[in-house]
């Protein structure tokens, strides 16, 4: 990749401001791949029935092996100490939205390879279980030796001679859905925070060979910019290929797909939004990671 200093030279040589700006924007977008990891919540159950209280256990992890843990995601202060992830855990908001739309707290505990939590359901309906990371500032740069560096927050220091310095915020929403007896839609209504999943298909009514219709929402409104949505079945560890389905959203954030095999799937989407002038942020990054369970006919 071109460093910013090299870019400047290219810009000066070409003398075209518009082209330079376009190239710069592209350069700002590229390094993200290097710092992004998949993350997920895996529920023991997504559909429950019964006349007594029901429980579901969850694991959450930052891992590129889908549904196999690698690093924990979330901690209540009682789990394994992970110093490098502690600042992230401090920012994470565990949120359960109930069938009435009310928010409940949830307690995650870190283990070496994943975090664990329990939730209990007494009232019928659909629950949204999320780990929400609000906009966390992060600076990325390329060091003199060509290696990439980053630091979270505003405390870090960019090493001398570093180039390609980009001030970012990253926000993500990692979530899944559980329905106890009759599902409802209240918990699925957009909260207005970051990237969210909506649409005609209820996320607890997913069956193979049926058309599943969803919509991406951004800050509570339909996402207008065409965005790639990636859907991958769990157990990538045991496959040679990831076999991802990549679907593009339309100008209202809508997309649909069909799934041929029952199982747990991770649906993810990522968008970059340019920082407002004078905000001192170049790029705001938003990620969505939703775990879906698809059943057989």
């Amino acid at each position, binding site marked *: 990749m071109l460093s910013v200093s090299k870019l400047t030279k290219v810009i000066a040589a070409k003398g075209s401001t518009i082209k330079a700006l376009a190239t710069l924007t592209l350069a700002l977008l590229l390094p993200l791949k290097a710092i992004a990891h998949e993350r997920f919540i895996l529920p023991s159950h997504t559909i429950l*029935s019964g006349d007594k209280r029901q429980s579901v256990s969850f694991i959450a992890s930052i891992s590129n092996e889908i549904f196999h843990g690698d690093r924990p995601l979330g901690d209540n202060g009682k789990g394994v100490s992970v110093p490098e992830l502690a600042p992230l855990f401090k920012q994470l908001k565990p949120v359960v939205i109930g069938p009435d739309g009310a928010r409940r707290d949830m307690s995650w505990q870190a283990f070496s390879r994943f975090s664990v939590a329990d939730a209990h359901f007494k009232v019928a309906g659909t629950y949204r279980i999320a780990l929400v990371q609000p906009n966390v500032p992060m600076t990325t740069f390329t060091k003199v030796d060509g290696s990439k560096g980053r630091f979270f927050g505003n405390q870090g220091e960019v090493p001398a001679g570093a180039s390609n310095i980009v001030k970012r915020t990253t926000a993500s929403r990692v979530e899944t859905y559980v329905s106890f007896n009759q599902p409802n839609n209240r918990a699925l209504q957009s909260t207005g925070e970051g990237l969210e999943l909506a649409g005609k298909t209820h996320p607890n009514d997913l069956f193979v060979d049926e058309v599943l219709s969803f919509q991406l929402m951004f800050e509570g409104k339909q996402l207008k910019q065409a965005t790639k949505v990636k859907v991958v079945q769990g157990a990538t560890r045991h496959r040679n290929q990831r076999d991802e389905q990549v679907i593009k959203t339309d100008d209202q954030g809508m997309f649909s797909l069909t799934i041929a095999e029952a199982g747990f799937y991770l649906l993810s989407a990522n968008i970059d939004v340019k920082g407002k002038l004078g905000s001192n942020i170049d790029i705001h990054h938003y990620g969505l990671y939703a775990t879906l369970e698809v059943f057989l006919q």
Partner: protein
Amino acid sequence: MKTDLSGLAAMAFVWILLASPVSQAEQISVEITIPKINSQPYHKPYVAVWLESAQRKGVHTLAFWHEQKDWYKDVRQWWRKIGRQQSPIYDQVTGATRKPGTYTLKIDNKELTKLNLIPGEYFLNVEAVREEGGREFIRQKIVIGAREVKHYEKSGQHELGKVAIKVMP
């Protein structure tokens, strides 16, 4: 353009015939077989037999044999189409799980009239799920409101044996 009123009237008459609820004499019977399975331990299967519209909307449960409510969800198709909404209500046809054998289920005239079905295509579904065992789901498209007796037959491979459906005019 000249309008042929008599033709229109005839069409309207046919339409009324088709759209009116099926006749009082209509009756549906479903014979299902729960096969003997050599399995240790053996748990009797949860079984649901129900009717869906052509658009796959739950219409009526003919039978639901179960043990505990915690496991209703595992009768997956029945649960999503009827069970979880409790609509239409299926309490009257629920009972304990049954041992292997052949059972005949009926929708009698009275029930059928209450359902107020428009003649046409429906799905008759049979789903069986066994704890520590397998699951089987059989769907058969049937026509309700035909002039003659209709017979349908399907065979399960694992958790269900023969399923024979008879729809009488």
